[in-house]
Every structure is written in C-alpha cells, then in structure tokens.
C-alpha cells in the first residue's frame, strides 16, 4: 500500500463512499415504494414479470472481471434509462389517478430525484476517471407503444424491481471501484478458492 493517498485517490474514495451511501438510501426507498406500488396497484408481489423492453437489467455475468470504467458506464446508462422510465411512470400515474394517489406519486417523484442525483454522481466519477461522458440522446430505445392500464402496472413493477437490484449492484460496483487502482481502473478479482 502507498504511504499516503494522492489527492485524486482520496477524492475518488470520497466520491465512492458518498455514492455508496446514496445508492443505499435509494435502495431502501425503492423497496418501500415497491411495497406501496404492489399494494396500491392491486398486484401480486410474487408475480413474475417478463423482461420489459427498455428496462436495463441488473443481471451480469463475470461481474468480478469488469473494469472500473465498465462499471461506471453501465451504471450511468442504467440510471439514465430509469430516469426516463420513472418520469413516464409518474406521468401515467397522474393521468390515471389524478390526486387520488398523491402518496404514491410523491414517493415516485422522490425516487426519481434520487435516481437523477445518482446519475449525476456517476458522471462526476467518470470525469475523475478522465473518461468522456456518453451523450444522453444516444441512450435507450425509442418510447414503446401505448400500453393498456394493466400492462402499465406490470411494467412499473418490472421497473421498480430492476431498480432495486441495480441499487444493490451499484453499491457493490462502487466498493470495487474504491478498491481498484485509479490509473488502470482494473478490478482486483475475487480470490479463487479450490
């Protein structure tokens, strides 16, 4: 280990720590929102929801082999997509229910804010890595066709479930990033056991 951290290493570690706290809080709020959403939309919490087009999947193979830059770019793409999806959910919510479900709308808005803040935080980390930040207009597919009310509810369930998974993954990704070398962004792999 180096005797003293360089300023950029210290800043990186600080940004990672703050990001971990943001992601942790976001996850707790998403889990609460998920419970409220399932109840108020009259859904079955154990219902399987097929992968919805446009919802970024948190599932990843060989996660431990990813570089720091890969982690940041995948996270950023995901949270930008969630920002658009949650904004769409909020709009649909307001159209469907007006003021009847203001609590759910407020909770959605709060999570949307956290997702936006986290996306910005990821951009800061990418700038620190001296990486260019991908343009937003290139992210995500075109908006899907108008869905029925039930399809909207199921998609909302899928969005929130994946977001909850992403929040956990982001915490793990940032911990890996905090461990790795700033120069290479290479991730130390897990020790292989027999």
């Amino acid at each position, binding site marked *: 280990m180096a005797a003293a951290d360089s300023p950029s290493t210290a800043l990186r570690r600080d940004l990672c720590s703050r990001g971990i706290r943001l992601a942790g809080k976001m996850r707790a709020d998403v889990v609460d929102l998920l419970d409220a959403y399932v109840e108020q939309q009259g859904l079955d919490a154990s219902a399987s929801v097929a992968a919805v087009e446009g919802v970024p999947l*948190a*599932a990843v*193979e060989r*996660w431990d082999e990813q570089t720091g830059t890969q982690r940041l770019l995948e996270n950023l793409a995901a949270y930008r997509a969630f920002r658009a999806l949650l904004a769409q959910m909020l709009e649909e919510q307001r159209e469907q229910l007006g003021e009847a479900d203001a609590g759910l709308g407020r909770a959605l808005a709060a999570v949307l804010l956290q997702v936006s803040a986290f996306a910005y935080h990821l951009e800061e980390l990418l700038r620190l890595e001296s990486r260019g930040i991908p343009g937003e207009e290139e992210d995500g597919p075109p908006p899907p066709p108008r869905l029925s009310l039930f399809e909207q509810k199921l998609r909302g369930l899928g969005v929130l479930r994946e977001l909850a998974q992403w929040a*956990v993954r982001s915490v*793990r990704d940032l911990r890996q990033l905090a*461990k790795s070398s700033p120069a290479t962004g290479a991730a130390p792999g*897990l*020790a292989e*056991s027999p």
Partner: protein
Amino acid sequence: LSLAAPPKEPVLMCRSNNYPKGFYCSWHLPTPTYIPNSFNISVIHGTKDMVCEKDAVPKNRCHIRYLQLFSTVKYKVTLTVTNALGKNFTTLTFDEFAIVKPDPPESVVAKPVPNNPRRLEVSWQNPSSWPDPESFPLKFFLRYRPLILDQWQHVELSDGTSHTITDAYAGKEYIIQVAAKDNDIGTWSDWSVAVHATPWTEEPKHLTTEAQITETTSASTSSFMAPPTTKICDKGAMVGSGAVAVCWTVGLVVAAYSVLFI
C-alpha cells in the same frame, strides 16, 4: 420389524453462505423408508438448466456456482426422491438475494478490561466461508446478558469486528454471542458459539496494616483481574490504627465499588 415405505415429500433447503460465489442445497427425508433411495436434483434459472454438483461429504448436498449476479429471475430447484416403492418430490423457488445467509462469526473472544468493572471487550472474525468481506462486507449483531438474567441486550454493528460492552454489571458472569449478515442482502446467520466472561473486579483487600497487604498479579479471560502491582497508598495516608487501620484511598475505592454492586 420395520416396513419398507415409499418416500414422503423430502425436505429441501438452499442457502448461500459464500456469496457471491454460489449456493448449496441440502435435503433429507422426514421419515425413513428402510430401503435405498436415490435423489435427483434439478436447478433452473429462467430458461437455463444448471448443474448442481454433488458434494462428496455430506452426501445429501450439492452446490452451484453463480453464473450471473444481481438477477431478478428466480431459481427453481426440484428434488425428486425415488425408491422401489414409489417417488416423491418437492420444489423450492427463490431469488438470489433471499437465500444469502453467512455462517456465524468465528473465534469470538470476550475479555475483561483492566480497571474497568463494567466493561467487556469482545472481538470476533468473519466466517472463513465468506470469500470477500472487503467487497461484500458483513454487519454484526451482538447479544449479551448476565447468566443470572434472562433478557438479552442487543447491539447492531455496521463495521468492525470488535465491540466494548460498557454497561455490564460489575462482578457478574456474562454470556455473549455474535451473528453476521451481508450488509445489503439476505438474512442473519445463526448465533456464534457462546463465550463467557466476567468484568474486571479488584480483589478484595483485607482491612489490615499496609505491611500485611500482599500484591499479586494474574491474567485471565474469564475471571477476576488482580489489582495493579503499583502501591496505592503511603504510610502517611493511613487512617485509624492497629488491626483496622485503613489506607484512606483504599477506603474511597471500596466505597465507590460498593455503590456499583447490585
């Protein structure tokens, strides 16, 4: 005379005590069949069949390496047991996070703190089966009580593998246990092996002249700590005379301790 029987529905359990490497499933029959049984296990993740590699020991267990992490798709495990008289099966469906349960913390040690009659220092280690505590840190739950009481005190600790209990009852033997959980997902481990410790107490001094005071030292992890070897009063600080002469500082200390005893 035991009659051979077809198998009843087997009992199946799956758990990840080495996240994120993989998980294992283990099984048993609720009642014996008295004839040989064969077990077949299948694991499906979404549309993908996965191979559960049987462990040599114990025989009723197999393990799977995670190919993906952070998936919302559930795992479906089906165990079928067959013998000459029939077959039975059971199915378990779960998601990746729900079955994460570390093994209990290891090497739990509790020690009295010298000159502190209400403190106990507790330390432990991460379970050796947890592969990467730096990237996947554990949090801990410590419980302790004096043997004479039934009610536990609880402390949750989000980092570190040690804790100092500061509200122990002086002179009472304590029982202490620790449990672990991944910081973000899953459930708490079972409680660790219990350890016992008693806070430091000063050895009772005979109320005699200073010349008759014997100074000893000893070290122990579960019993009294002897008082320090340095002298604690001078000849000039004596009060009284003869057999009941008392060093006034000792008198103050004894008075203070007597207030703490319950």
